[in-house]
Structures are given as C-alpha cells and as structure tokens.
C-alpha cells in the first residue's frame, strides 16, 4: 500500500495514519515520523515552494528506492507545500513492515532524502520580511549515511 501526496492545506497526521495502518493487515510494526514547523524565535510563517514536474515524481522515485531497499508492506509519504504557521505539520512519513528494523530505517531513509534531496525550497517570514533558508551541512551528512 503506497500513498504519496503533496498537500497545499493543513492536515492532521492522525487522520492519515489510522487508515494507513488498517490498510496493511498482518503488519508487525509501523513507524511514523511527523515534522512540524518549529516555533523558532521571530519566525511568523514558513513557505514551501516546489517545482511540480519534479517534486511528486521525485517522491515516487524515493518510494521506489525505499521499497527496493527495505522489506516494506506499505509506505505513506505526505508533504505540505505553501504557507504554514509554527506548529503545523510539514511532513508525515509512515512505513509498515513485518519487522521493526525495516519500518524504522525506511522512515529514517525517506526523511533524510526528503530533507536533503527533494525539490523543495523554504523561506521564513520574520518581522523584517521573507528569508530563504539555505541547505544545511547536516542534511548532506545525513544523506551520506545511505551510501
């Protein structure tokens, strides 16, 4: 069961994860990561832009790689685009598998790639206007873990 989505509105992760778990009967474990917009000092809003012809196909390719690399029963990958406020969910990745290691590692793998290699650009709004967020060295280090 594969469910890959880009959403331009607020979503509630729990409403996705329940049905996802139900859709993978016989699973041994489900690992889920939900990322939210942090309440960073002075940040009023976050905007995520993307290039549609690359973004969704890129997420599907990432899902292909996760299914090839781990023994998965199901994978849910949902990413927000557009304008978000602190506390709103940005991303939700959930992996269902017979064994916990596959479920946990698949979520870790997908998150590293979504953060470091997916076609998203972020900017944040502060009192003095919008600021683009540069890539972080840590993202590249995270990606390098997967060879």
């Amino acid at each position, binding site marked *: 069961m594969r469910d890959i989505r880009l959403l331009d509105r607020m979503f509630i992760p729990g409403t996705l994860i329940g049905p996802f778990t139900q859709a993978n009967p016989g699973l041994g474990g489900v690992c889920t990561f939900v*990322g939210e917009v942090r309440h960073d000092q002075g940040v009023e809003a976050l905007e995520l*832009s993307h*290039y549609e*012809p*690359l973004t969704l*196909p890129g997420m599907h390719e990432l899902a292909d790689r996760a299914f090839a690399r781990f023994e998965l029963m199901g994978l849910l990958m949902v990413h927000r685009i557009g304008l978000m406020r602190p506390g709103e969910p*940005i991303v939700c990745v959930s992996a269902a598998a017979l064994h916990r290691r596959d479920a946990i590692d698949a979520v870790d793998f997908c998150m590293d790639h979504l*953060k*470091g*290699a*997916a*076609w*998203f*650009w*972020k*900017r944040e709004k502060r009192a003095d206007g919008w600021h*683009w*967020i*540069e*890539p*972080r060295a*840590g*993202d590249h280090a995270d990606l390098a873990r997967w060879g």
Partner: protein
Amino acid sequence: MIRLVFLGKLADLAGGDTLEQPGSPLSWLELLASLPTSLADVIASDSTKVAINGELVADKAAIVAKDGDEIALLPPVSGG
C-alpha cells in the same frame, strides 16, 4: 517562445517566477547572455541545476532549448 522558471531565491534575483524568452532555438550561453549578469552568474554556477520540460539535465552547458520548452532553474534545495 521559451519559458524560464526560477525556483527558490532565483525568483527574487530574477524579479519573478517566470520569464518568457522570444528567441528560439536558444543555447545555454545565449540564455545566460540574455539575463542580468548577477542572475547569470548564479545560474551558471554548479549549484544551480536545470530541468527541461520536467526532466533534469545532466550537462546544462549542452542544452539547446526550442520553441515551447520550459527551462526550470533550480538552486540548492533547503533542508529542514
């Protein structure tokens, strides 16, 4: 007509998300020459990737865009 799409902070440098270029065919050097130097320099750097009609290009210096093409200019993605 060739359509340029500027992603992320390139849109700020370009003064907009998109730009229509009349000339065609358009080589990579012709494209750079048609843009303000400050923008062309960033786009020419290794950190800017290019996609034509939704397909990533391995060697951007070799591209020749023709009428109807969409060229996306992609700065480094921002992690999170």
